[in-house]
């Protein structure tokens, strides 16, 4: 099929027509989507979500390593999907392109991506920061800084208005997402201010490392660890600084789970607060959020946020506890790094950007009991 045929076969994206129209008038027509980096962990989840999404049709999934193999070859849960990986060299024209490639790849191909799709959602860090200078400081610079001003940070809980109609969306970092969801109510309500000391101590699963592997992530070495893999200076600090205006003390540990990121934030407000104040702040921030569950105390086995309770879902559990001794606020959050921290957040943001039902395609509730998912 030639380039021409392909673009003609796409009814919605031609001429950069607003894809939202297609849905608005009847809801039967579907948007086409492609996933670049579909053999990866986040890419596989994108494929799962998009094939189950009422408004999307998965048109293309790229992989260089598995070109021409079925999606099920790399992702056993997708054995039922009738699609084969294709080369990222041959991008089809679609309504939305999701790029789920390692840092540095999207910035190199951003022109081709935006050419191929009216809406581009990038899951890497390549378009998360506003300033090229930040990329010099935290990453290895940027090769397409002219796109930075176009990009919108995806996490809808930080403000969904600016996402509406966005055409370049930067999905947030998983550890940044977990941390910001725990702290945002404290910032919004003024309980903590930029000068207050905040320690964020994270515990994350092995899928954060991607499908690649390496000696440290082999099963015998990675099993059972509580390994401080970023004792200081994790790059996600940059996003948090930018989005919340907080400069944190950040430490990330690898623990023995595959999915999940749990943030424990120790904050020291300059003024004493009560538990009631905290409930007020958290409810204010999240009462209307479809994907945030407040979990703070109560009874039973599950009293605070736990990653396994949200595994496979786009939910975040958020909670807190007040230390009566010294006024410390301990804010917790738990997400699935590949979902709320990556593919789920990306689809959620695309839903908002394109005017779809916000929760469309993201209705999985998670499992109980569940081991170490």
């Amino acid at each position, binding site marked *: 099929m030639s380039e021409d045929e392909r673009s003609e076969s796409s009814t919605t994206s031609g001429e950069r027509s607003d894809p939202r129209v297609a849905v608005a008038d009847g809801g039967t027509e579907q948007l086409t989507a492609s996933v670049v980096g579909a053999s990866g962990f986040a890419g596989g989840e994108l494929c799962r979500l998009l094939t189950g999404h009422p408004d999307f049709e998965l048109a293309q999934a790229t992989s260089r390593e598995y070109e021409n193999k079925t999606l099920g070859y790399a992702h056993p849960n997708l054995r039922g999907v009738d699609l084969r990986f294709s080369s990222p060299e041959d991008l089809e024209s679609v309504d939305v392109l999701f790029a789920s490639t390692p840092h540095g790849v999207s910035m190199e191909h951003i022109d081709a991506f935006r050419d191929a799709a009216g809406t581009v959602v990038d899951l890497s860090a390549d378009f998360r920061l506003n300033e090229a200078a930040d990329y010099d400081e935290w990453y290895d610079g940027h090769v397409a800084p002219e796109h930075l001003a176009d990009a919108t940070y995806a996490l809808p809980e930080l403000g969904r208005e600016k996402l509406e109609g966005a055409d370049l969306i930067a999905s947030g970092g998983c550890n940044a997402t977990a941390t910001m969801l725990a702290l945002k109510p404290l910032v919004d309500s003024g309980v903590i201010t930029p000068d207050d000391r905040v320690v964020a101590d994270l515990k994350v699963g*092995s899928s*954060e490392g991607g499908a690649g592997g*390496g000696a*440290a992530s082999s099963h015998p070495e990675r099993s059972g660890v509580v*390994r401080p893999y970023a004792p200081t200076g994790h790059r996600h600090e940059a996003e948090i600084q930018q989005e919340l205006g907080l400069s944190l003390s950040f430490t990330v540990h690898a623990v023995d789970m595959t999915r999940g990121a749990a943030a424990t934030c120790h904050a020291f407000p300059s003024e004493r607060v009560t538990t009631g104040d905290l409930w007020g702040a958290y409810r204010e921030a999240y009462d209307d959020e479809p994907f945030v569950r407040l979990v703070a105390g109560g009874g039973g086995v599950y009293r605070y946020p736990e990653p396994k309770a949200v595994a496979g879902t786009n939910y975040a559990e958020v909670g807190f506890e007040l230390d009566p001794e010294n006024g410390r606020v301990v804010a917790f959050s738990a997400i699935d790094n590949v979902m709320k921290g990556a593919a789920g957040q990306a689809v959620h943001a695309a839903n908002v950007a394109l005017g779809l039902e916000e929760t469309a395609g993201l209705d999985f509730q998670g499992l109980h009991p569940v081991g170490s998912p």
Partner: protein
Amino acid sequence: MTEAECVECGGTVALHDDLEIGEIVDCETCGAELEVVDVSPPVLDRAPELEEDWGE
């Protein structure tokens, strides 16, 4: 068996006899990777950081 001081932690690093310039050894105390920059007497310097992939 000769010895040298680790530039990172001040610990003693035991060195084998047929040491060559450019060899990389690790400090027993702090684990730092050290480059042999001179052999008689042996002098160690911090080895150029190999930005290794290490986990997540």
